[in-house]
């Protein structure tokens, strides 16, 4: 069991539970991926995230460690599950409270928090749509069945966009909800163009 995926899963379900009433299992993967992107925005190396994402045939991010954590949490009674949607139990809340007190998760909580807060400003369907238009997941559209996402060699465009975004809104801003929502809005409006450019020009600008 990957302890980082463990923490992220419980945190994300608790946050989406509060905002949306529950969390679909697919949405946990989605917001974990967005959280990882927020860590990239904060200039952390992708290798520091602690687990990898693959892209499914449908063009969505998926993580085996998150999937395992979901199953384990339901088994342990930290989550309840109905028709593919999860909610946190009291037991899960206590477990999360304990985990949040540990120093090792403090920094990544910032990224998770910023990503999950985007669900306040955008319907989850549009978060999914925006991420689906992101170049990394668009390349998957071209018929690659399963591939690891966010390999450093392909992140040039993303790093450039994030650098420009952070220059525009202020590097010192602690609240990552702002870059998350702005970047998602931007991708919704421009994602087709970005995806095509990456497909035509290769993975480096």
């Amino acid at each position, binding site marked *: 069991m990957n302890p980082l995926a463990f923490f992220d899963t419980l945190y994300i379900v608790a946050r989406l539970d509060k905002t949306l009433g529950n969390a*679909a299992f*697919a949405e946990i993967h989605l917001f974990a991926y967005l959280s990882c992107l927020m860590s990239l925005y904060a200039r952390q190396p992708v290798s520091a995230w602690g687990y990898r994402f693959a892209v499914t045939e449908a063009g969505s991010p998926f993580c085996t460690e998150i999937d395992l954590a979901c199953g384990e949490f339901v088994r342990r009674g930290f989550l309840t599950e109905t028709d593919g949607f999860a909610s946190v139990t009291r037991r899960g809340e206590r477990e999360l409270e304990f985990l949040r007190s540990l120093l090792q998760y403090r920094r990544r909580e910032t990224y998770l928090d910023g990503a999950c807060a985007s669900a306040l400003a955008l*319907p989850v*369907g549009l978060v999914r749509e925006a991420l689906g238009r992101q170049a990394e997941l668009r390349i998957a559209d071209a018929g690659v069945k399963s591939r690891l996402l966010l390999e450093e060699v392909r992140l040039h465009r993303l790093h450039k966009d994030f650098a420009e975004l952070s220059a525009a809104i*202020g590097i010192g801003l602690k609240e990552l*909800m702002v870059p998350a929502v702005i970047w998602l809005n931007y991708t919704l409006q421009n994602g087709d163009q*970005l995806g095509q450019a990456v497909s*035509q020009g290769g993975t480096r600008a």
Partner: protein
Amino acid sequence: MTGMNLQAIGEFAASHYMAMIAEAHGDAGVVALRQLIGALHAFYQQIAPELCRSTLTVFRPLDPTLRPLSIRGGRTIRDFMTLPADVRLPCVVQVVSERELILWNGIQIEYQQLAEHSVVYRFEEEIETFYAGQLSRPVPRLGPTQCSAFAHPTFRDLAQALEVYRITWAQRSSCPILSQVWYDSDRLFIKSKPEDTMQEALCNFLRMTMRGSAEIRREQPMDETHPIDIKVTWFLLNRIALIEIKWLGQSKHTEGPRRGELATEYSASRANDGARQLAGYLDMNSVRSPTQVTQGYLVVIDARRAGLSAQTVSLSAREGFSFRDREIEYTPTFHRERPDFAPPIRMFVEPVCRGA
């Protein structure tokens, strides 16, 4: 990369309300914004923004202990279920915490002044604006079926989503995308070849509102020549839905020498054609993907009217609504014989009628 404006994201960010609030009030402003948006979600769950005919002003001071409005008559709200009974627009709401508001009914305020030390939100004539410091920015409209960016219905069930679309957005052609299919403002005639717009309208709605792992895509090929109109894939649940859209009614040519002439007319038999077509797609899919759980949905946009001719410019209610309650008879009844064929959904779109 050709044709790319590498400055675009910076310019886009500078015009966004969140960047504006961060610029005006820093991290404290963003904290205030989060609480304000949370309150808006709760507010709009009780009071639909479509029903807000006058101004709503909501603010959250940077210092949550402040009470900047010294106006008497503010009511403290801790149970948001009482909002429908308590709110009378125009009104002003202070967000005290996630579970507490102060409400003043029937007043307008100097919100620009308030924005010096608060984050202020205004909803007026379906336009949403944030104010912070000396600045203001509109909230981007995310989709045509969304009255407020902070009130978005979501659905776990596709059939439920389609039913809500039928009642809320199709029935009176309130969907701004669907509204583009009409040749005339009274919705008597459809423009020639409306299929693309109808697909886009429903697809857009489903993308915004479907929860879970639902991926919604248009015109997915079933074989070399036949695409299904909309395909919904739930990748974690091994389920897909195939949606076929058919329209009924009378269309008119919109361009060229035949502009204004009658074009295609589709009657109830077109719905039966659609049902047979969908059954065929389901059969094809069961061969290609035998392990997937598949459900087919036939959506019929019903714009049939009685008494139409090329010269018709208005209809009575009796003529315009003559097909409103006339359900389509299907032969064969795939929805009764096949477990993978959902009951067809007929969406009658009301015309504007003049006279009884």
